[in-house]
């Protein structure tokens, strides 16, 4: 449900025929054949008891991976790069960076 607001991970099919290639220099918006999860050394873990839902992490995530989920925050681990901005900026220290 929540994923509807974000482009989904899509499998890239290697073109087999000349007609499969895109014509001209354009391509579909929001087409994501690759994930960024492999970049991560530390992953953010949210302590929901401490979280006051101020949404500062939601605003400041460079990748937009933090989403609202019925009054709680949720992180899309497919595209989180583990930069740690959310944990560093959290006013309640409710996010901890844990080594994968």
């Amino acid at each position, binding site marked *: 449900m*929540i994923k509807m*607001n*974000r*482009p989904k*991970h899509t499998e*890239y099919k290697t073109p087999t025929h000349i007609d499969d290639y895109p014509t001209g220099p354009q*391509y*579909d*918006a*929001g*087409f*994501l*054949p*690759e*994930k*960024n999860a492999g*970049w991560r050394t530390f992953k953010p873990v949210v302590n929901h008891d401490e979280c006051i839902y*101020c*949404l*500062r992490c*939601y*605003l*400041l*995530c*460079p*990748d*937009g991976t933090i*989403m*609202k989920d019925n009054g709680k925050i949720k992180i899309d681990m497919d*595209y989180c*790069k*583990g*930069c*740690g*901005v959310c*944990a*560093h*900026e959290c006013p309640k220290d409710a996010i901890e*960076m844990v080594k994968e």
Partner: protein
Amino acid sequence: MTKVLDIPKVNAKNMTEKEFFYGHKACAGCGGSIAVRLALKVLGERTYSALPAGCMSAVGFIYPQMAFNSNAIITTFPGSASMAAGIAAGAKALGQKDFKTVVFAGDGGTADIGFQALSGMIDRNDDVLYICYDNEAYMNTGIQKSGLTPYGTKTTTTPAGQNIPGTVTHKKNLFEIIAAHDIAYAATASIGYPQDFINKVNKAKHVKGASFIHVYASCPTGWGTPTETSVEIAKDAVDCGLIFLAEYEDGEYKLNRNPKEFKSVEEYLKKQGRFKHMSDADIQCVIENRDKKWERMRKNWL
């Protein structure tokens, strides 16, 4: 012009859940991508983005990966503003309504290479919002000095040595240069103050005609800072007075933030690898330049 009070407020609670810049390949903790992401969320789905060569086009369009989830195009390096002007004119000719054309250019693509096109766009008053994310060097090509690189920065074209402390020139007064065109709306912002940036983009969205936002965006790779401190550094830059938050509207300058006391400049500089080599005399030079600028701003803009 639309009155400020009539514009619906946008904040983290009520902004769209949709992401228009998602799954990009920017370095972890990239400040520029925070700026682009927030601006696109404020501007909404009906947005045409034009991006010249620079970090955000390099990380957003990696065939077949398309991180932009709305219409976006890579432009020539010096022609981003003119291409955006063309997009706006084309959309108008097609009878489209309720859309915005936006440019996301880096500091080099704005202050150096793309400047003549930007100047022409403001002169013609095309309905384009030009956002310059300023990471203070040509980061995408490997940290070369640009017109907006501040004094003392170590870059690959201005290395710091015994005789020269890196960059020897000060930052261009880009905001004042743009305002001197008598533009409809211009502002400076920093990703360290995200709500202020959102408000300014929201205001610019409702301006008919050319508008410009200069947003200070940190770059962990080029600045030599830990990835998690990106936002903190951008906030510190404002708090120590090296970056100011201001607006230009209806021919009037407005200083949004006028702190009584500045935070330590030295502390801000020493956090970053690019300023590590700076001597006390160099830091004094930075502080003197800052004080001179603030004196002028407080005299003329308040």
